[in-house]
């Protein structure tokens, strides 16, 4: 059995190599796209490492009106749109606008310690003068957190990034600001697409790899005012 499997693999490999040498033309008229899949072997990164040389470490906040927004390591650098295709510049603009509409102040940091959105949001909350923070991954997944909560709990979680729109991002800003003010907050209504995993999970994995490979724990959290 083992011999047969090895033999088949060897033949398949030889055929693929032949096809690649032929530039996709094969005697049977089979296109190379169908012939086998070794093209990714040996590849170890998605994107080159970004330099944060000279970046300024974000300071502990003291302003009780502040909401800190912690964005992902690839935010506005390697990744410019969410998994649903919304430009990250617009995402950030709307979250900030939401915070300001409620009379609070926003501050953006880039989180280079972790790409886990729960921990990103908690880190932002701990840095925030009010104790309220928002974590936004580059693929768009967002959490509102508070500094005293357990890492894997939260005030509000928006796990299905492909369903997000700019109105929701604005509401997230507003609700975060309302938590700062200690108001009775009605959480933003949940949305659910039961087919989201089928359509997006592989893409989500690739985007998360791009984000994670940009981590630089030496730098920690840095001041972030948009693309640099």
């Amino acid at each position, binding site marked *: *059995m*083992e011999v047969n499997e090895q033999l088949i693999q060897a033949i398949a490999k030889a055929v693929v190599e032949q096809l690649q040498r032929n530039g996709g033309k094969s005697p049977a008229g089979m296109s190379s796209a169908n012939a086998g*899949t070794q*093209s*990714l*072997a*040996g*590849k*170890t990164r998605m994107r080159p490492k970004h330099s944060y040389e000279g970046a300024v470490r974000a300071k502990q906040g003291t302003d009780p009106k502040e909401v800190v927004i912690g964005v992902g390591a690839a935010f506005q650098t390697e990744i410019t749109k969410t998994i649903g295709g919304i430009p990250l510049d617009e995402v950030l603009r709307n979250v900030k606008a939401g915070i300001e509409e409620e009379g609070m102040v926003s501050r953006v940091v880039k989180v280079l310690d*972790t*790409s*886990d959105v729960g*921990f990103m949001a908690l880190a932002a909350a701990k840095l925030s003068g009010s104790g309220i923070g928002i974590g936004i991954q580059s693929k768009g997944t967002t959490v509102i957190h508070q500094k005293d909560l*357990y*890492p*894997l*709990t*939260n005030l*509000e*979680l928006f*796990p*299905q990034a492909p369903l997000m729109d700019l109105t929701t991002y604005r509401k997230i800003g507003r609700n975060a600001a309302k938590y700062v003010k200690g108001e*009775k*907050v*009605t*959480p933003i209504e*949940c949305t*659910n*697409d*039961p*087919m*989201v*995993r*089928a*359509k*997006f*999970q*592989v*893409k*989500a*994995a*690739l985007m*998360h*790899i791009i*984000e*994670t*490979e940009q981590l630089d724990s030496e730098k920690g959290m840095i001041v972030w005012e948009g693309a640099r």
Partner: protein
Amino acid sequence: MKRSKRIEALDQRAVNKDGFIDEWPEMGFAAMKSPYDPKPSIIVENGIITQLDGKKREDFDFIDQFIADYSIRIDRAEESMAIPSLEIARKIVDIHTSRKEILEIVSGITPAKMVEVINYLNVVEMMMGMQKMRARKVPGNQAHITNLKDDPVQIAADAAEGALRGFSEEETTMGVARYAPFSAMALLIGSQVGRPGVLTQCSAEEATELELGIRGLTTYAETLSVYGTEKVFIDGDDTPYSKAFLNSAYASRGLKVRFTSGAGSEVLMGSSEKKSMLYLECRCLFVTKGAGSQGIQNGSVSCIGVAAGVPAGIREVMGENLVAALLGLECASSNDQSFSNSDMRRTARTMLQFMPGTDFIFSGYAAEPNYDNMFAGSNFDAEDFDDYNVMQRDMQVDGGLRPVTEEDVIHVRREAGKAVQAVFKYLGLTEVTDEQVEAVTYAHGSKDTLKRDVASDLMAADDMLKRGITGIDVVKALAESGFEKLAGNILNMLKQRVIGDYMHTAAILDENFQVMSGVNTPNDYMGPGTGYRVDGKRWEEIKAIPHRINVNEF
């Protein structure tokens, strides 16, 4: 290029909306094996494992060390490792080799050896293996009970209907995490309306989940996640040791508990260490075994989109279910997460567990329409109930469900809604109106129900935790509101924690609260004429699907 109409038609098929990716072992996109997987080996010196799968003890990460110290029977290791992997694979399929003998052999092998064994099996052989290695004689099924509004009344009604339909366990979770106390309580109440003895859990942040369990608002726990690489463990603020402690915390209060793991989580977290999904999952399952857990929920679970995206991914999913059974663990075999737009593909995937039977074929069949499934969609949902019942009947297979009548469904849904209404009133929580109970009784999903005051609900839920409300308070509330039989059922569920028998491997309870587990009702399959067969009363029940032609009135 001028388009072929045939190819255009094919491009429009649902399956082509699914995500597929080539194998890329460097990033962990490899299902069954990776060129970077270690080769099996073991060295035992003075009763200690000093080398595991090619790695010396001083180079162990904490997962290796945990496995070496707690997961492998050292007295068996050298003998088991000497048996060729092909021979172990053949014994798994051989009807003349008993489950017990295989458990004995497997108790001494390493994770890399397990990977080698599984790679020798095709999917049919894996199914034959599962038919024999499943812990409990009778297969079972578990439901997800959730809704988009986190409406506790709907949770109770869906739980009652789900229990009536045959689920042995029911799991809830929330869109808004702070609803957890309401969700857990409503699920507990509803389940016992539908069928006494159904176990319930509330998937939440771990500390919250434990607290709900300790208070008796849930009767088991499942969401103790373990991972195959050290980095992902650390990212989750955990180690195998902390998970073992958490497991013991549940055990100390007499709660049934199982762990959770599955292919693709390390890939999604970007830390696969270039290993195959099967190898990493074997590490998870060995950790689960070593931590003393009776069981596991696995089969890629929430990362199924990744596993299903690579070649042989669905074979790997069945393979990892089988590994769980080979280690003697209860296996709740996933099928609980949507992964394909194609009805054909999603059904085919489930057949691998449905046909041989597992301890829980689904570790979350959506007992509500999928738009209400807050685990982001299950592989089967409430609209598939009749298809599923027909498949059981077609193949004479026990998938754990049964046909029901509309009258019974309406009856238990209303009863559950009224019980929750009474308990909320007695405990001074938010109001549940008659209109709301009525809407939920006849509802298919949350699109048919009334809106609740979310902000008030959340304040009341927080208050419920602060006031220290427990399962006993629920029993009292029901008993003093005229629901004495239901109060008795819930009291009986609480008693299980004192008795403790349902902590045995793969335990479920029948309608008389009697335990059926891998210990008192073990799987004794050894080929044709042995093991569990669908017959008698159960077969009559499965046959009675709705919409049969009534010959007398034809």
